């Protein structure tokens, strides 16, 4: 058992493969998540809980949509935009999807440059991610304005089942809030990176603890999760 009890986290730890390895990790009377700092483990556990929240929203949407006797409004037409003379179905949502995926791409590269301790590139990529996220929220605000102008309310809409509005505002509103929080978080962390907080072990304002470049990866986990949730909303709410 001696080789299963590391003295510090960064050590290479020998372990049996497969399920035996999981049992060894979980029964080691120490931390269950070896090689993962508490910050990263806690972010993963938070994301797990957030998964359940969004699942509950999507499940209640599924339930109202399956049980209504009134036809569900066709999202393909509701979210169509007239560009020039042509009416293109779902085009705004498609653009929003590409914007969010691009922001995930820049975030993944920011994490990479963070671990290479290239603080200019890291901060630039994080700010690019934040800008794409803000663009996404802006497009969502445009979409909300358009739909509210057309008479969509949480209790009714001109096209069919009244539950459409409540599902739409609840699901996209909650997701938009997550994106907004992510943008704020990204800007704060980009500022810290740019200032060199993690190179000079500067103590944090609130916690008085020294930060590490790992926080870029943790911020990235949150950001990718927001993108992940959008994948499910796009498929289940807009395309279904």
């Amino acid at each position: 058992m001696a080789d299963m009890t590391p003295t510090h986290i960064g050590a290479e730890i020998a372990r049996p493969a497969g399920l035996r390895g999981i049992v060894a990790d979980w029964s080691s009377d120490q931390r269950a998540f070896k090689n993962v700092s508490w910050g990263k483990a806690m972010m993963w556990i938070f994301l797990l809980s957030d998964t359940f929240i969004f699942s509950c929203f999507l499940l209640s949407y599924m339930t109202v949509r399956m049980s209504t006797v009134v036809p569900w409004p066709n999202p393909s037409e509701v979210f169509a935009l007239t560009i020039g003379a042509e009416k293109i179905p779902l085009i705004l949502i498609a653009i929003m999807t590409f914007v969010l995926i691009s922001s995930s791409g820049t975030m993944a590269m920011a994490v990479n440059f963070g671990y290479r301790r290239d603080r200019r590139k890291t901060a630039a990529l994080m700010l690019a991610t934040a800008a794409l996220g803000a663009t996404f929220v802006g497009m969502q605000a445009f979409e909300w304005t358009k739909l509210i102008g057309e008479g969509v309310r949480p209790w009714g809409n001109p096209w069919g089942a009244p539950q459409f509005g409540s599902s739409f505002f609840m699901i996209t509103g909650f997701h938009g809030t997550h994106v907004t929080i992510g943008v704020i978080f990204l800007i704060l962390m980009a500022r810290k990176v740019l200032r060199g907080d993690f190179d000079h072990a500067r103590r944090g304002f609130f916690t008085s603890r020294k930060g590490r470049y790992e926080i870029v990866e943790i911020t990235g986990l949150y950001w990718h999760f927001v993108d992940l949730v959008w994948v499910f909303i796009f498929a289940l709410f807009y395309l279904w």
Partner: protein
Amino acid sequence: MTQVMAETELPRGEAKAQHHPIRLYLVVWGWLFVLSTCSYLVDYFGLTGYLRWSLILLFMILKAGLIVAIFMHMAWERLALIYAILVPPTLILVFVGIMIFESNYTLLTRLVFFATGS
């Protein structure tokens, strides 16, 4: 002192663990674009029925898998973490089953008691 050691040791260990070439991220990014385009085209061409639903779900799962495995580095984590995070959400499928049952029942009662349609 040991605290300080632990704090300075970690980034190096992590850097070794999660150091992947930029090219990998660009390839995944490209695939996500392709898959998103495919799922948009499902709507654009107006596919319907089981073909539509299965394609939507297929593209959704592929995209989600790429994001979690590569962007969130889950593919390189230890099994103890992977199982702790990825197994609980599968229980949601049970919840989905329960709610399908429930909404079919609600629909049935609505059709029986409000036969004219609301």
